[in-house]
């Protein structure tokens, strides 16, 4: 409870300060009664003290400051004139508030002494000019409950249980009396109100229906959960409301204060945890809320409000829980478990780790070369440590994509308002992680694609209804990991792409010839070409035909790829594939003619010896017969060098690589195995180099080139097509 104590201390200090300010403000007012800023500060002082006192349930303070506040509010609005008389009453009120605060802090549980209570009434009388008929005690019990019996029930130490049995309860074998008997075993039933307002007259009354309602005032130390369990069997046939005693409020507030501040929980969960609610209460409220959302008659109320309305928990408890929730959120947001690190430092660390990986490779090489078997063990364990460090260092830069995704909620909201469309954004896989640098660079292309979906993809509500679809369109953002890549999908349930329009436009722009012979898929991908937009009229959002090509370029700059799929009338899906990181990859090293190449390991499907039984090469039609399947291939040596002149037949191997759906074989001279590859970007002059995405330094100081597998697969497939088309 130390937090509670320290909060009290803050309250004491704060009130003291405010009251002092109030005094000096009053004194200023004596000389200058029209100073509106000073009047405001008076109002704020009373208002703040009232608010803070409310948090601690200091009812005498609340009651008194409330009156003072109302008077000051009137003064502030010019409804009441401030004069020497009022100032002196206010000065007395200030002194009195000080006493009230002292009393509440020193003996919070004791009732207000008579003299203080009397002063309160007297001052209120002087402040308001009205006589204070009822004593302050009435404000002690919060929101008195009006029962059909008329009048209020004092609930300070008792549970209030409302049982509203449904008509069929008796027929279903319930006997309400038996629940009351059982309840008696848990505590003392102080009072029962039995009423039957809906019992019909005379002949209408069905003696087998149940018209009984009970309100039970119940004293018990049992928890809410236990009490609720009494009525467990009746739950279907009875509306049960269990309101904790007011005296429990303090306990709940204290428990709330003591709650763990390291996680943000849902409001319902918090209240269940402290015992103010049972899971049933929360479920019930949630069902109501969901129901309200569906019927859509009035704005959906927050869950806390529903709970109070259902009379299962008191307002102050909910307020405090909300406050606590907010505090926890803030705390997590501010101090939390994160350390903010300069991205530059992190980049430097990752560079160093890269160097470490290279030198560890060099060391392994030397250990191997000299056959130092005892050093081999040490090297191996160091190697695994280096791997672990590499992975951890890379993970430091990994961030969840969810934050980027949720930024688009605003975009979708604004754009759909602007366009007069109803569009919902659904987000999946927000917890998928990828490199921060990638996240930053993917933001613009994503925005563009989403705007495109909103503008071109989703139809207007009328068109949608006419097409038999719900008026509300949806755009889905989805992210998931797939073979070392992250895939981000933007899917809409709109009209889909119109391939005829695309073809017409592409022909008009000279992108393709009328006898193009392209597949549907290839036609769709034409929209990534520069200068192509199918929207007849450009809006200020999109449609100028500038952008999709930029999107593609941006994504390819990240070593990623983008593809599009569409079903007319059902929607369009754009998939972006991106590498998880831009720094270090697991590579597979191969060699031809002394040159070494790195293929990203996750793209390698298998390695096969050439001319083995499983694998035959057909040089004329340019394919490899791999277990009965035709596989396009590339001879890496031939492709990157001038063809070999020496005739010495080397043993060749085939590395089968895959990218997405496509597969191809790379024919190489040597397989060097897995290699930790630190990607070094190529210099400016090599920037335009095709099919090489980067380089890496090997342990022996040589350089290996990293292959652009995707581009090479395409080349292989094209070559195969060309050769297959030739007459044999």
């Amino acid at each position, binding site marked *: 409870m130390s937090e509670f104590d320290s909060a009290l201390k803050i309250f004491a200090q704060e009130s003291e300060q405010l009251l002092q300010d109030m005094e000096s403000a009053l004194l200023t007012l004596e000389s200058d009664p029209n100073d509106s800023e000073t009047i405001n500060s008076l109002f704020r002082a009373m208002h703040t003290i009232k608010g803070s006192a409310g948090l601690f349930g200091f009812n005498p303070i609340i009651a008194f400051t409330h009156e003072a506040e109302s008077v000051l509010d009137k003064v502030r609005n010019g409804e009441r004139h401030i004069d020497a008389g009022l100032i002196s009453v206010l000065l007395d009120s200030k002194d009195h508030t000080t006493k009230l605060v002292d009393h509440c802090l020193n003996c919070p549980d004791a009732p207000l002494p008579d003299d203080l209570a009397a002063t309160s009434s007297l001052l209120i009388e002087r402040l308001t000019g009205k006589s204070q008929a009822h004593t302050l005690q009435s404000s002690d019990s919060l929101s008195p409950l009006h029962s*059909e*019996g*008329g009048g209020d*029930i*004092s609930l300070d130490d008792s549970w209030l249980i409302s049982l509203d049995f449904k008509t069929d309860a*008796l*027929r279903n074998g*319930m*006997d*309400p*009396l038996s629940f*009351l*008997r059982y309840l*008696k075993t848990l505590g003392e*039933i*102080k*009072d*029962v*109100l*039995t*009423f*039957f307002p809906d*019992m019909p*007259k*005379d*002949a209408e*009354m069905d*003696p*087998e229906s*149940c*018209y*009984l309602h*009970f309100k039970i005032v119940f004293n018990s130390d049992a928890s809410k959960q236990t009490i609720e369990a009494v009525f467990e069997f009746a739950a279907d046939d009875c509306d049960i409301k269990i309101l904790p005693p007011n005296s429990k409020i303090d306990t709940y507030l204290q428990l709330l204060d003591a709650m763990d501040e390291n996680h943000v929980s849902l409001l319902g969960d918090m209240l269940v945890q402290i015992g103010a609610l049972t899971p049933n209460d929360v479920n019930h409220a949630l069902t109501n809320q969901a129901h309200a959302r569906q019927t859509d008659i009035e704005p959906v109320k927050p869950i806390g409000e529903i709970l109070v309305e259902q009379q299962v928990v008191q307002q102050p408890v909910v307020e405090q829980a909300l406050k606590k929730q907010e505090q926890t959120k803030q705390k997590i947001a501010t101090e939390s478990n994160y350390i903010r690190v300069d991205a530059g430092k992190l980049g430097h660390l990752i560079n160093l780790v890269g160097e470490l990986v290279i030198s560890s490779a060099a060391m392994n090489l030397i250990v191997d070369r000299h056959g130092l078997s005892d050093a081999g063990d040490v090297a191996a364990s160091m190697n695994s440590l280096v791997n672990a460090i590499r992975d951890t260092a890379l993970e430091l830069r990994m961030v969840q994509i969810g934050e980027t995704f949720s930024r688009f909620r605003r975009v979708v909201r604004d754009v759909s308002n602007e366009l007069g469309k109803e569009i919902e954004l659904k987000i999946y896989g927000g917890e998928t992680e990828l490199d921060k640098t990638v996240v930053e660079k993917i933001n613009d292309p994503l925005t563009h694609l989403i705007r495109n979906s909103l503008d071109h993809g989703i139809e207007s509500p009328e068109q949608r209804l006419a097409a038999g679809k719900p008026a509300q369109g949806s755009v889905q953002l989805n992210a998931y990991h797939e073979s070392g890549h992250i895939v981000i999908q933007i899917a809409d349930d709109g009209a889909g792409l119109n391939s005829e329009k695309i073809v017409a436009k592409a022909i008009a722009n000279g992108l393709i010839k009328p006898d193009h012979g392209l597949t549907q898929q290839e036609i769709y991908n034409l929209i990534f070409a520069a200068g192509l937009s199918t929207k007849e009229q450009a809006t200020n959002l999109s449609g100028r035909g500038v952008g999709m090509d930029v999107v593609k370029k941006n994504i390819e700059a990240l070593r990623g790829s983008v593809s599009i799929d569409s079903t007319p009338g059902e929607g369009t899906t754009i998939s972006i594939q991106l590498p998880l990181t831009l720094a270090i990859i697991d590579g597979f090293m191969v060699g031809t003619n002394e040159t070494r190449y790195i293929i990203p390991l996750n793209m390698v499907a298998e390695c096969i010896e050439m001319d083995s039984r499983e694998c035959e090469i057909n040089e004329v039609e340019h394919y490899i017969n791999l277990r009965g399947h035709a596989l396009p291939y590339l001879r890496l040596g031939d492709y990157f060098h001038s063809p070999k002149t020496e005739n010495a037949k080397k043993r060749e191997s085939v590395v089968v690589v895959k990218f997405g759906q496509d597969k191809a074989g790379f024919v190489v001279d040597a397989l060097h195995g897995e290699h930790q590859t630190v990607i070094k970007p190529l210099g400016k002059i090599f920037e335009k180099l095709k099919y090489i995405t980067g380089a890496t330094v090997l342990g022996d100081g040589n350089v290996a080139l990293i292959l652009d597998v995707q581009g090479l697969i395409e080349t292989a497939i094209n070559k195969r097509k060309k050769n297959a088309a030739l007459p044999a």
Partner: protein
Amino acid sequence: MSIEIKQLKNAAAHLAINGEMTIYTALDQKTTFSECLENNKELQIDLSGVSEIDSAGLQLLLFVKREANERHIKLSLIHHSQPVVEVFELLNLGNHFGDPIVLSANWKKT
């Protein structure tokens, strides 16, 4: 279950209930009570023979009381059997049974 009806004098009846007042008997008993309410200005219900009373039975008594009140029929419950007393105590209906709005003894005090 049975209700013995003794017509005492003009428009006054004495009803003695024997056996249970439960959901199983409520329908029959209600018919009998309704008839008596139609034809009398004064009703005496003798509960001494009530061996068991459940919510339906209690509800029926509450119903009879309300109807009687509305028609200005004088209703008195007499000779409460133990099960009836127990239920009346449980619900604090006790002596106050018959108030237009059923309030308990404790309630009156506070």
